[in-house]
């Protein structure tokens, strides 16, 4: 059974990890989670992003959801918005692609060109 004691332990652990409160700008990963996105599988995509960021201990990126981005036929869609405000739109995602985007785009700062909207619409 999950207990409150465990929560307290998580708190202790988390407190140690946030040594310096980072107020720096963060990379934002925004997943389209309207009806169209959800029906296309955006839930597992968002879960993969969150899981991968946590697994790799990445603190300079956050995941959030937004409504319909407007191109439902290309869902699941996620936008990666860099600290400089530059936006990369990834389309037709799945959990595996999401993990690759974290590894290549977030960690190594090289966008995964083949998953971007520019490539899909060629």
């Amino acid at each position, binding site marked *: 059974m999950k207990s*409150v004691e465990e929560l307290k332990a998580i*708190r202790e652990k*988390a407190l140690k990890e946030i040594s310096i409160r980072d107020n720096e700008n963060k990379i934002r990963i925004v997943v389209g*989670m309207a009806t169209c996105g*959800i029906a296309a599988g955006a839930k597992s995509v968002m*879960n993969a992003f*969150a899981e991968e960021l946590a697994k790799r201990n990445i603190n300079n990126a956050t995941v959030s959801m937004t409504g*319909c981005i407007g191109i439902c036929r290309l869902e699941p869609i996620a936008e990666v918005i860099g600290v400089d405000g530059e936006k990369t739109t990834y389309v037709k995602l799945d959990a595996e692609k999401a993990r690759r985007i974290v590894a290549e785009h977030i960690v190594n700062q090289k966008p995964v060109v083949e998953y971007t909207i520019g490539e899909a619409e060629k």
Partner: protein
Amino acid sequence: MKDIAHHLLDIAQNSVSAGANIITIKITVSPKSKSAGKQDLIIEEKVSDTLTCEIIDNGRGMDQEFCKKVLDPFETTRETRDVGLGIPLLKQSCELAGGKLSINSVPYEGTTVKAEFEIDHIDRIPLGDVAGTVKMLIIANPEITWNIKFSSPEKEFGLNTCEIKHYLEDIPLNNYDVLVWIEQKINEGIREVFGGVLNEIS
């Protein structure tokens, strides 16, 4: 939508857009009330229990006129396009499984969306990953108080993110370890309350 959890994720976001700060997701299994008549028939009819999913928010609500129109796919508040399918799709899922959808809303007080399904109906979609849905909703909206309630005739389960915040103090709710804890806690609740009651949960 493949399962009920996907619908809940979709509908809960309407509550978020309506500016709610307390959102309750309530899943209930209740025995169907016996229908009147047909008592002299010898054939015993199997009565199916009802699965009810409610999303209750304290958002800005809708007036009666809009509330009636909201079941129409061409009625939406969104600005990207003139079509909104969230509610109509849920209505379809309910009706395919011998249930119904009802919406109750009071302007400036909140909205309740209630979806009912006949549990044993062959076309009822499975419950799906409700814990994962709640996890996603918390990641995206940690500032909202999420209230999760499950009940079956014999058991009950409840989780409130406000209480969890109390234990966490200065640690944010969307800390990943906390999210995993919440996800597992909800999964335990589902097994405890709906195990053996819903046939997809052992």
